[in-house]
């Protein structure tokens, strides 16, 4: 996957990703990160710090990011509920401690190996590989589809 990245800080909350008053909007992506007055429409990646997705369990946060065109979020750590919601809805998350990216840098991300190359600077980073059980769910297109394939649902 190749595309440009927007850089955000630590503790980006689901209130900032999609404010409560927009949770019922049919166009979640339109309001994504409106709490921070940021437009992410032209980006494929978000690169953030610690605890991305903290706060409310609202799944619209994941849906809004996907709807806005985000393909993968690279962060030092993720909040627990957000992580589950992302896997359940097949949004890719990579944990990476030492990544160095500036706004609008172009990244080349290989999910299978969790390798991130910053094409704007030529520097490579190694993220943690997505755990096997999460990858299976993501490959199926989310947990509902995955469980249907397994015959659980």
């Amino acid at each position, binding site marked *: 996957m190749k595309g440009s990245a927007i850089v955000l800080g630590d*503790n980006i*909350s689901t209130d900032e990703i999609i404010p409560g008053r927009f949770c019922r909007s049919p166009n979640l992506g339109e309001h994504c990160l409106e709490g921070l007055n940021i437009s992410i429409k032209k980006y494929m990646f978000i690169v953030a710090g610690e605890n991305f997705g903290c706060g409310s369990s609202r799944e619209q946060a994941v849906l809004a990011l996907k709807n806005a065109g985000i393909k993968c979020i690279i962060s030092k750590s993720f909040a627990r509920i957000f992580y589950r919601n992302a896997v359940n809805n097949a949004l890719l998350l990579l944990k990476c401690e030492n990544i160095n990216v500036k706004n609008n840098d172009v990244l080349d991300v290989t999910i299978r190996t969790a390798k991130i190359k910053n094409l704007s600077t030529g520097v490579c980073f190694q993220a943690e590989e997505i755990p096997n059980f999460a990858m299976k769910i993501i490959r199926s297109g989310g947990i509902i589809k995955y469980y249907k394939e397994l015959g659980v649902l």
Partner: protein
Amino acid sequence: MSLTHQILSRKTGRNVEPGEIVECNVDFLMMHDGSAFIALKNFGKIGKKVFDRNKIMIVFDHYCPSNSIENSNIHNQIRKFVKNQGIKYFFDCGSGICHQVFAETKPVKPYSVIVGGDSHTTTYGALGVFAVGMGATDITVTLATGKTWFMVPEAYRIVINGRMRKGVYAKDIILDIIKNLGVAGANNSAVEFEGSAVKKLSMDSRLTLCNMVTEAGAMNSIIGVDEKTEKHFGMKIKKIGSNHYGKVFEYESPDEPLVACPHSVGNVKPVREVEAEIDQVFIGSCTNGRYEDMRVAANILRNRKVRVRTIISPASRNIYLRCLKDGFIKIFMQSGAIVLPPSCGPCIGVHNGVLGKDEVCLSTGNRNFKGRMGSGKIYLCSPATAASSAVNGEITDPRRYL
């Protein structure tokens, strides 16, 4: 083993270890009109019966009474689902905020495993249960199968000792803990509260304490069963001991009232150090809309007038009725406050108190993230600090009025 690990071990039939992933049967499922919206959309694609209609609670609290045609339509879809599936515990608009309704309804006994479609499901830890908040798709899976998976958390024991000083309440204790641990300091952990200060806390206060532990990233919280738990359930309950924690933290109950400043719950300072004019005060929410909170506010607002827009919302119909009986609602109205029926509206910025540009709100809610209540800035505090500040028109140390 810690209480959480004992509950999970009993439920899975083997000794669980932190970090492992376990599949687990669930004793009860709770969701509200916010999470049910997506959960039922998903569930429609599965086309099954729910796992057990007697083990599900649905509460309307996020959009109550409805603020739009769209939300009214969604409410009607959920009502239809409740009827078709024969859901036993259904609470329509005005009943209360889901976590308070759950605590009052007591559909399960201590040591049960509960999943809730809301991050503040940690609240029920005060009742001695293992309760975890999840997103709507996880809830859908449990709705159909009665099961979920957990990564077994590491147990953190948080000991709070010392006496409760004047003007200090459970809210101040939990703000102090979040300040010390950091907003991700308890990530994925099972927090077990202990200590002389916790022992003395009422059930209302314990619910406040456990409610906000999610703001430090905890997966769940739990307080061991004691005579206050037994009183709440109106029955004798077996008490189990606990030991072996990944980490132990010891704190003294804070010396003075605290406030979390914008835009992080971890940005906590003593009230006396914070100078801020306010446009709105909100007293309510699943954190601080309980009877005890209303009583504290009423005692401060009695024979006084508020100087800023003040919104008060008891967290359930039951609490509202008790407030009426004890004259609190009259005190609130005479003080110039606006009294709302129970709902999440103001705290989540959906309706009934949405902030305009550059407005400042002092709230007894649980989150002060940018955009949470609309525009503007949010400070978080106890009901005593909120009521005192409403009277004085700026953030004010409640000891002045106590």
